[in-house]
């Protein structure tokens, strides 16, 4: 089975802290994604990566950065956490090109910024 693992299910951080959300996949997928999920807004794409060290901004990248030093790991970084970044964060991975079909998701990290 494909596995996408997010390092934490729940996190509580203080305003201004630097926050790292980690995601690891075991299927050698080229594409990895970070989404934010808020009630009534669905899943909004923050960043995605299509190869090691390659990244593209999604629809809401402000206040976030990402790192992909190894193919299996994709990190989301909140440089200075703010209360409006309190949300559920979902990581996903997917193959690329003609073989690409569905994305596989992690369990999510519920982040609360106080």
């Amino acid at each position, binding site marked *: 089975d494909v596995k*996408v693992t997010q390092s934490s299910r729940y996190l509580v951080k203080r305003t201004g802290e630097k926050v790292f959300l980690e995601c690891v996949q075991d299927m050698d997928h080229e*594409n990895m*994604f970070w*989404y934010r999920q808020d009630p*009534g*807004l*669905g*899943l*909004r*794409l923050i960043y*995605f990566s*299509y190869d090691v060290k390659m990244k*593209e901004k*999604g629809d809401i990248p402000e206040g976030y950065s990402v790192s992909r030093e190894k193919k299996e790991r994709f990190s989301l970084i909140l440089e200075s956490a703010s209360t409006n970044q309190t949300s559920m964060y*979902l990581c*996903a991975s*997917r193959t*690329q*090109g*003609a073989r*690409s*079909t*569905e*994305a596989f*998701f*992690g*369990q*999510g990290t519920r982040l609360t910024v106080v």
Partner: protein
Amino acid sequence: AQSVTQLDSQVPVFEEAPVELRCNYSSSVSVYLFWYVQYPNQGLQLLLKYLSGSTLVKGINGFEAEFNKSQTSFHLRKPSVHISDTAEYFCAVSDRGQGAQKLVFGQGTRLTINP
């Protein structure tokens, strides 16, 4: 750029009744289409997908969806729902091109099954 609109934010139905969750998409290129389900406190799980071929696709748990290219729709249906179908459902679209392919989601539809 693609976009997805789920026309109903909440759908309440009685157990054993039929249900349809509506999804419309916008894209300038050929697409793949997906429905995902999210049970409380869990990640997203694939229900079904349209890649090519028959426009009627069947998924898990008795769900099916029909791709309608002329109406740019991909509505999800189930003829008889169960309490366990209570969840949030997301429609998603991705283009078919080579290279990096974003997966764009709709706003979600919360399905509530009443006994």
